[in-house]
């Protein structure tokens, strides 16, 4: 059963080969880890060609109203990866809405004790807008101007 789309066991992106092409690409910067809500956000960021690090897909955003807490997302896996891979920076690229904001700040609180700096995209993005609707230039600028949480 080749060519079946599955989840990458490292970053949880969608892939045909496990680990995925991004996780196994030696030319990519292993010291940068970008956390996104969904696999589709990776495609938005890849389009900018401004990011050369690796990714981690949470599988959604924290929203207790919808029954989604940290335990429903790949938060534990993220913390384990950070411990194992020791990146120099974790970039949280969640959407600039209330859930995206709370998720980013929650992660920063969790990652804080490890000493790894956590940054967030500088949003010139429209508030309430989605990453995958943002044009490449806006998104690249948001990435470039990311700030420490």
């Amino acid at each position: 059963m080749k060519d079946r789309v599955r989840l990458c066991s490292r970053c949880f992106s969608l892939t045909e080969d496990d680990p995925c092409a991004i996780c196994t690409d030696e030319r990519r910067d292993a010291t940068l880890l970008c956390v996104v809500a969904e696999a589709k956000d990776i495609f938005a960021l890849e389009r900018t060609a401004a990011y050369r690090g690796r990714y981690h897909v949470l599988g959604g955003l924290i929203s207790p109203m919808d029954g989604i807490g940290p335990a429903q997302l790949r938060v534990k896996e993220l913390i384990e990866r950070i411990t194992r891979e020791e990146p120099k920076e974790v970039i949280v690229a969640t959407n600039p809405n209330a859930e995206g904001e709370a998720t980013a700040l929650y992660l920063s609180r969790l990652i804080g004790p490890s000493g790894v700096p956590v940054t967030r995209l500088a949003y010139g993005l429209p508030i309430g807008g989605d990453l995958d609707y943002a044009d490449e230039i806006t998104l690249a600028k948001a990435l470039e101007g990311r700030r420490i949480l």
Partner: protein
Amino acid sequence: MILTRLTLANVRNYASLEFAPAPGLNVLIGANAQGKSNLLEAIGLLGTGKSFRTSRESEIVTTGLPTASVAGEAVVKPGPIRLSCTIALGAGGTRKRYTINGRGVRYATYLGKLRVVTFVPAHLQLVTGPPALRRALVNAALAQESAAYYAALASYGKHLAQKNALLRGLVAADEALLTTYNERLIESGTELILARRAFVTELEARASAIHHAWVGDVEGDLELLYAANVAVEVPTHDGVASAFAARLDEQRAAELVRKTSLVGPHRDDVEFRLGGRPLAAFGSQGQQRTAVLALKVAEYETLFAYGGEAPILLLDDVLSELDGERRAAFLRGVATVEQVFVTTTSEVDARAAATYRIEAAQLERVA
């Protein structure tokens, strides 16, 4: 601000309507259930994107149809403007779209372009009714006035709902997540508290002067007190934020036990006092009503002063609730109104710029 044209499509009992209101006082006369309040609701919807009658927006769409729309042209200080608000029914609930001069915009951009002050019979309970009624008045005024206030209010509401869901146990208890929500609430809540404090101070000065002009010294001064849930001792951003944080810490255990948020501006109130005594407990119904009228005129004046131009005034079935003297006093109080819409079941003894009769969603100008 003057609304010069209003176009409705599938709004409640209006299949379609073209209405060219006059500057000044527009009187809409009609029997019950003919559509006069629906028309006023539509003007409110055009201005604020919200109904003053219902939170179930699907009710606004004519039964059996997929969308309702309100469009209008107005003259505001920067110049003429075209606005529209469309409500579409969908599987996941209603969806609203807004345009300014034909271009789609977000609600935060739309809100405040055509400002309205609404006076409905429910407001007559402002003194004695639940705190939510008084908070709604303050929020409606400030959200129209300030985009920053609206943003803070929206953010606060979202994080509060999530925090409450966490406290209710919809997801596993998580101290770090609770702290995250509390920090978000402090950030937006501090803005709300400071803006409300300034607004109520402004409102009080005006309401008190209006009240004094109406009834003189005999009953003592009318006071409005901002009863903030997080007491403001140092009225600076840092002062309020640290007081809020301290109260959240203090009540953290209690919130976990009670499974709900106990601290913050969602529990604010505004208290009326007359001659130093709480008006809700000690005032006569007449005194309470006069205080409400003074407050509504003060709200109008404050929005006028904040925005630098007269908001549109909507009076839905409220004049008939007032005796002749109070009605006359109120109408004198809002004499500077550039445009006001009044619904009534019978003639109004005021100098109307235009009078319309509404029957079965048909509008006919009669004077």
